[in-house]
C-alpha cells in the first residue's frame, strides 16, 4: 500500500537501529503519547531494536482509555432516555461503567448503534425525526473537528434531534500535567494526527520552558525509529526542540479549516480523565451558540460520583509510572473479552496491547 509499505521496510528500520546504537550515549526516557504509537512499537517489536540507553514509556493518548467513569455513567444514563438512539465509535460500548456497560444496556434493549463516522449519526437523526439521536463525542484534536463539522451542519440544516455528549479532549494540558506531576521523561514522541490538526505551536512551551525534546511522528515503524533517532540527536547535543518527522502529513501551522471549526463550536473546560483526575482546560465543551445540540444541557443528567474500578491501575499506566505487568488483574481477571478497566478495551490501550503481544 502506497505510503505504508515504504515505511515498513526492514533494511531502513535496521539501518536506523544501527545508527541509534552508534550515537546513543546518554540514558534517555521518551514517552509515546499516542495509543497508535504504543501499538506500532509492540506490533513491530521496536523495543528490541533500541540500544539499552533508550527507554520508552506509554502515555495517556488513547481516547477510550482516558474517558472517565463519570462520562460512561452519563452515557449509560443517556441510553435509558425513552426514544433515544445512542451513536458511538466502537470500543467505547465495552468499557465498564460503575454498574453496567453500554454493551449490556444494548443487550437489554437500549438502541445503541456503533458508527464509523459522526456523519452517520446525523443521517440517523434525519431519518428518525421522532427520536433523539445522541452522539458520544470522544477523541482528541484529530476527532473533535469532525464532531464540530457535524454540529455546524446540523445547525445549517435545522436538524433539531441531534445531540452531542462531548468528552472530547485536547492533548497539551495532559502532557504538561504529567511533567508537572514529576513523571521523568526527556522527550515526547508526539502524536502525528493530532498535530496534523493543531500544528506544532502547542509544543513550544514543552521545549522552551521544560527543556523537553518533541518530535512529531508518523505511525509506521520507520517513522517511529526515525523520530527516536531525531530525539536522541537532540538530547545527545542537549538541544531540545520541536521537530516534525511526519512531514508528509504534518505542517507547522496545522489544518486551518479544522482549527476554525474547533474554535467555532467548542471552548475549553476542566475535564475528568480516567485515573488522572481533573486536568484544567483539558476538555472541550460545546459553546453557548450551539447549546441546542449539547446533550448535557438538553437532558441535565446527573450521575452519582463514581469511583474507578477496584484493583485497576490504569491511572498509573496512563502516567507511564507502571506497566500492565505490575497489575495483579492483568491477563487473569482482566482480559480483552472481560475487561476491568478501559486500558484493556481499546486496541490502542496499553493493557490490550501488552495482552495481545505478551510472550
Amino acid at each position: 500500500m502506497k505510503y505504508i509499505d515504504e515505511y515498513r521496510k526492514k533494511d531502513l528500520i535496521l539501518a536506523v537501529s544501527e545508527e541509534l546504537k552508534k550515537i546513543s550515549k546518554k540514558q534517555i526516557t521518551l514517552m509515546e503519547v499516542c495509543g497508535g504509537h504504543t501499538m506500532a512499537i509492540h506490533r513491530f517489536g521496536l523495543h528490541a531494536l533500541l540500544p539499552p540507553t533508550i527507554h520508552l514509556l506509554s502515555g495517556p493518548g488513547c481516547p477510550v482509555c482516558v474517558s472517565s467513569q463519570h462520562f460512561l455513567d452519563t452515557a449509560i444514563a443517556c441510553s435509558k432516555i425513552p426514544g433515544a438512539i445512542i451513536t458511538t465509535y466502537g470500543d467505547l460500548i465495552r468499557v465498564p461503567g460503575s454498574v453496567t456497560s453500554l454493551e449490556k444496556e444494548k443487550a437489554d434493549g437500549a438502541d445503541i448503534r456503533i458508527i464509523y463516522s459522526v456523519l452517520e449519526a446525523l443521517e440517523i437523526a434525519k431519518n428518525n425525526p421522532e427520536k433523539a439521536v445522541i452522539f458520544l463525542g470522544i477523541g482528541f484534536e484529530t476527532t473533535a473537528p469532525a464532531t464540530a463539522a457535524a454540529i455546524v451542519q446540523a445547525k445549517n440544516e435545522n436538524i433539531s434531534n441531534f445531540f452531542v455528549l462531548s468528552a472530547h479532549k485536547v492533548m497539551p494540558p495532559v502532557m504538561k500535567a504529567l511533567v508537572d506531576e514529576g513523571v521523568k521523561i526527556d522527550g515526547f514522541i508526539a502524536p502525528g494526527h493530532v498535530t496534523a490538526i493543531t500544528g506544532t505551536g502547542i509544543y513550544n512551551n514543552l521545549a522552551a520552558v521544560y527543556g523537553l525534546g518533541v518530535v512529531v511522528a508518523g505511525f509506521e515503524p520507520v517513522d517511529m525509529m526515525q523520530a527516536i533517532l531525531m530525539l536522541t540527536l537532540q538530547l545527545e547535543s542537549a538541544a531540545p526542540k520541536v521537530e516534525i518527522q511526519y512531514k508528509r502529513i504534518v505542517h507547522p501551522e496545522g489544518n486551518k479549516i479544522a482549527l476554525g471549526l474547533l474554535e467555532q463550536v467548542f471552548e475549553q473546560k476542566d475535564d475528568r480523565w480516567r485515573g488522572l483526575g481533573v486536568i484544567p482546560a483539558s476538555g472541550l465543551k460545546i459553546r453557548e451558540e450551539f447549546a441546542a445540540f449539547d446533550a448535557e444541557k438538553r437532558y441535565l443528567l446527573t450521575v452519582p460520583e463514581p469511583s474507578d474500578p477496584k484493583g485497576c491501575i490504569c491511572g498509573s499506566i496512563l502516567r507511564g509510572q507502571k506497566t500492565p505487568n505490575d497489575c495483579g488483574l492483568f491477563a487473569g481477571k482482566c482480559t480483552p473479552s472481560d475487561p476491568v478497566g478501559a486500558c484493556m478495551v481499546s486496541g490502542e490501550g496499553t493493557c490490550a496491547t501488552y495482552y495481545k503481544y505478551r510472550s
Partner: protein
Amino acid sequence: MCLAIPAKVISVEGSSALVTIEDVEYKASLLLLDDVNPGDYVMLHAGFAIEKVDADEAAETLRLLNEIADNSRP
C-alpha cells in the same frame, strides 16, 4: 479509533470524495480539507479526510532514510 489511513482520491463531489484503500471504496468527507483533487492521497480518519499526503515530503523523508542506510553499510 485514532487510526488514519492513506487513501487515494478517485473523484470529488461537493464536500465529499470517493476514495480507495487497497481497491476498496470508501466515502470521505471533505469538510475539513479543501483543494482536494482526483489522484491525491488523503489521510482518512473516522470518515473525514484530515490532511493531504505531501508526495514531495514523503520522498524527501525516504531519501534521508536511505542515506542513513547507505552510511550504515560497511
